[in-house]
């Protein structure tokens, strides 16, 4: 056991944009996956409407809970930036709180989404609309979990002393991916819940 950790040499500075650029591409890929699913969803819905079929049964999808998710994610967008800002200011307690809060919001969104899915009573093998509803929400949940895991791992590194005024890229990258996942939901919200 090193008797002291205060006397060790500081790590070399890394290129501050590497992780961010990588995350940028990854977020783009994630967004495109989501748009890919959404495209099929919207397309099939339009076809069904043109054919005069019912997409969702009337009144099954309520706007309330989905709206809450919307606002939760708006809040989370702020908390995650709060974390970035705090780590930039080397304000670690604030950063930890903000990261934990964001993770909690993520869990809340998951919870609400789960409620919505159960609330609809849809079946995978039901109608086309129900099936695609599952695909959409399921894909979103996968990315949401991904974002929360990214945040959690970032938090882990932050807890073990990484990131700070000179190197905030990890937290900023987690935030970037988080925003991308938020965008996915906002698009979904309009596409599925508002314009049913």
């Amino acid at each position, binding site marked *: *056991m*090193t008797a002291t*950790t205060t006397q*060790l*040499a*500081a*790590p*070399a*500075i*890394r*290129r*501050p*944009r*590497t992780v*961010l*650029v990588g995350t*940028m*591409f990854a*977020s*783009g890929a994630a*967004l*495109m996956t*989501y*748009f*890919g699913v*959404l*495209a*099929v969803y*919207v*397309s099939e819905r*339009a076809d069904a409407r043109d054919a005069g079929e019912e997409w969702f*049964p009337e009144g099954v999808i309520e706007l309330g809970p989905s709206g809450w998710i919307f606002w939760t994610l708006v809040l989370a967008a702020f908390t995650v930036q709060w974390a970035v800002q705090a780590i930039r200011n080397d304000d670690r307690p604030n950063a930890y709180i903000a990261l934990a809060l964001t993770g909690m919001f993520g869990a809340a969104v998951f919870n609400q989404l789960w409620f919505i899915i159960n609330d609809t*009573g*849809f*079946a*995978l*093998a*039901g*109608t086309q609309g*129900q099936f695609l509803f599952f695909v959409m929400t399921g894909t979103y949940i996968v990315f949401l979990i991904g974002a929360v*895991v990214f945040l959690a*791992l970032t938090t*882990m*590194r932050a807890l*073990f*002393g*990484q990131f700070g005024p*000179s190197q905030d890229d990890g937290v900023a990258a987690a935030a*970037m991916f988080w925003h*991308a996942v938020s965008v996915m939901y906002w698009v979904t919200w309009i596409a599925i819940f508002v314009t049913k």
Partner: protein
Amino acid sequence: MFTTGFKFFFGLTIALTIGAVAYGYSTGGEHVGPVTLGWKGGVGDHVGYLVLIGGAFASACFAGIIVAFRDADPAAQSHYMGVEAIAPTTPVTGSFWPVIGAFGGAAMVLGLVLGSAVFVLGLVICSLVAIEWTMDAWADRATGDAEANKALRDRIMAPFEIPVAGALGVAVMALAASRIFLNATKLGAVVWAGLIAVIIFGLGILYAARPKMNKNVIAGLVLAVGVAVIAGGIVTAVDGQRDFEHHGDDHGEEHGEDHSEEGEASE
């Protein structure tokens, strides 16, 4: 000042947007639908329109980010950090975790088809890899001293790794030996038991004599275990269906549920 990267990605954005609008109108878009994301009037073929718009959106984000970073030019990055120059990368230690992660991902893929046990195994492997990988990434940059970094990493992770690895090793041994015993005849089991004991003893002697194992041997073991996981999954799929009665039941239940749900939905 528009940077090269910005020009490229913003060019993509413009082209894809124009493409989307044109595509929208040419595939039956009406009114101002294609230019207003379908706010009024149809957008034509939804798949093409949305993918084009999505691509435009993503590349617009790329453009915005990359211009904010000034193309991540080395000069811009150094300026941001307030230093003269930053080396492109810092040394990264070799690690088994990426390859184990790939095997974990493969196990998850197999598990999605073959059954939940393999999937859960893959998930567990991937979760472990995520944590270990994170801690490796952490340790690589904890201090500027590679030796100290390794020491720090071991200090944090060894309390988990050694017990878990030990438990896993024992579990694998016990499981494998029990399969053999169950498979063999009465006398054969005795012979096997003796043989396994001798092998373990021999390996023990070997390790005691040469505590610094050849790294290629370790690599071979990792690869073998990874292949065994995959092979195990396939074997479970091929052979396991008769052994594990639940497998068939699960499917039955799923179908049953589906039907009842369908019935409800159609009401």
